[in-house]
């Protein structure tokens, strides 16, 4: 048997490395991400009336299941920030930006996101920001960034 015929007879099958599962995020988080696709920001109301953003399925203090989604934002206030002068390739913006804790109007807790301020000098704790949506949204946390309002 020659080398060539051995090669012709070898069994082959295509293989694509991929994650072939579809994961459901559950009732609360599916509602949260579907709303992002529709350019709406939904927090979740706790029993004590306080609103958490992003939505969560459980109250972090009492562990109670919570599911009442309420609209918040799109304006918010920067509670803390860190300036990224040299963004990495994977990060959301190619130009310098800030990671920030932003408290959306109507929410009682700040959350981690991105502020596209252009320059560090424009950043300040307490500044007002507004969500700016991507041209095409996909139902993900990076469907928007904040910009100074």
């Amino acid at each position: 048997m020659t080398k060539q015929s051995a090669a012709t007879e070898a069994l082959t099958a295509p293989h694509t490395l991929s994650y072939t599962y579809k994961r459901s995020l559950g009732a609360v988080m599916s509602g949260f991400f579907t709303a992002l696709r529709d350019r709406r920001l939904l927090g979740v109301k706790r029993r004590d009336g306080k609103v958490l953003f992003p939505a969560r399925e459980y109250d972090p203090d009492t562990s109670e299941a919570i599911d009442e989604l309420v609209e918040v934002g799109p304006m918010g206030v920067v509670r803390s920030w860190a300036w990224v002068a040299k963004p990495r390739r994977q990060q959301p913006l190619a130009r310098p930006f800030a990671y920030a804790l932003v408290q959306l109007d109507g929410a009682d807790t700040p959350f981690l996101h991105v502020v596209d301020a252009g320059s560090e000098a424009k950043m300040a704790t307490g500044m007002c920001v507004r969500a700016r949506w991507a041209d095409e949204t996909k139902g993900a946390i990076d469907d928007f960034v904040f910009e100074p309002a």
Partner: protein
Amino acid sequence: MREVAVVGFTQSPSVRREPDRNEIEILIPVIQALREQTGLSSKDFDFICSGSSDYLAGQSFAFVSGLDAVGAWPPVCESHVEMDGAWALYEAWVKIQMGYADTALVYGFGKPSMGDLPLTMALQLDPYTMMPLWPDAISIAGLQARHCLDAGLLRAEDMAAAAVRDRANAKNNPNAQVKGDFSVQQILAEPFLVNPLRKSDCAPISDGASAIVLAAGDRAKQLSDRPAWIRGIEHICEPMDLGIRDLGRSRSSEIAARKAGVSNDKIDVAELSAPFTHQEILVERALGLSQKTKVNPSGGALAGNPLMAVGLSRIGECATRIWSGEADRAVAHATSGPCLQQNLVCVLEGN
């Protein structure tokens, strides 16, 4: 409760990059030195537990190969945590408490220099609401630091002073990576790495490994003239979301310290594993240490930060000072997660 003590401790030097050795090759001499120090061989360990991260190695089940450094024949009883070795020590301590073992070997190892560590750390965050934004570990810590600065909980000078203290202490530690005489002014003159953090506010990136032997009761007394008895050990976790935690204090460290009995008596030595200067201050406050406590005589995590081993090494650094008689009572701290999310506190005593 069974009396359990640290009776052996070895570590590799912390270095920015191990160019030639893989994790196992870093670990082998550490384990070998521990065998020589304690006179024990693999068959003498009833239980073996390790701490490491597949995310640093970049391959699944990478920790299994760590056993090559120990030897898996004859068959051993072992376990692993995807956490710092301090949590592997906690598991081993529980195993001994339950009567399943009288001796245990615990080790931690990591080679973060193979990747972009601050970015790799983003993979520990919530996969849907945080990780897609790729917030690097320095930026995440920076949010906490600015919160503390804005709230007047600490000043940039205090943060720089923590680095100055640790680097000066580390001059006596041959395994430390960042050491020497620095001044607060010198550090404050540095440009920001990620405003409000300067490079000197951040622990170095270190490759390294460390290992500990635990033994119970009479076995510990056979193995050591002055065992470092674990008189309190506790770990507490806070929620991951940064917005629902009080970033100006370390609540989980406070609770762990209380449950471990830190304030029951004087503390001679404290070894802290906080990877940023502001976090070191927050942990120091949470433990309620007095002026009489010598903090980070080894230099702590800010002087050498072998990820997955750095917390375990803090317990070892405390134990060596108990063995030598330099300290009668010491407290070690380890941390995990963003902004001091989870903290372990271990109280060691010589008597």
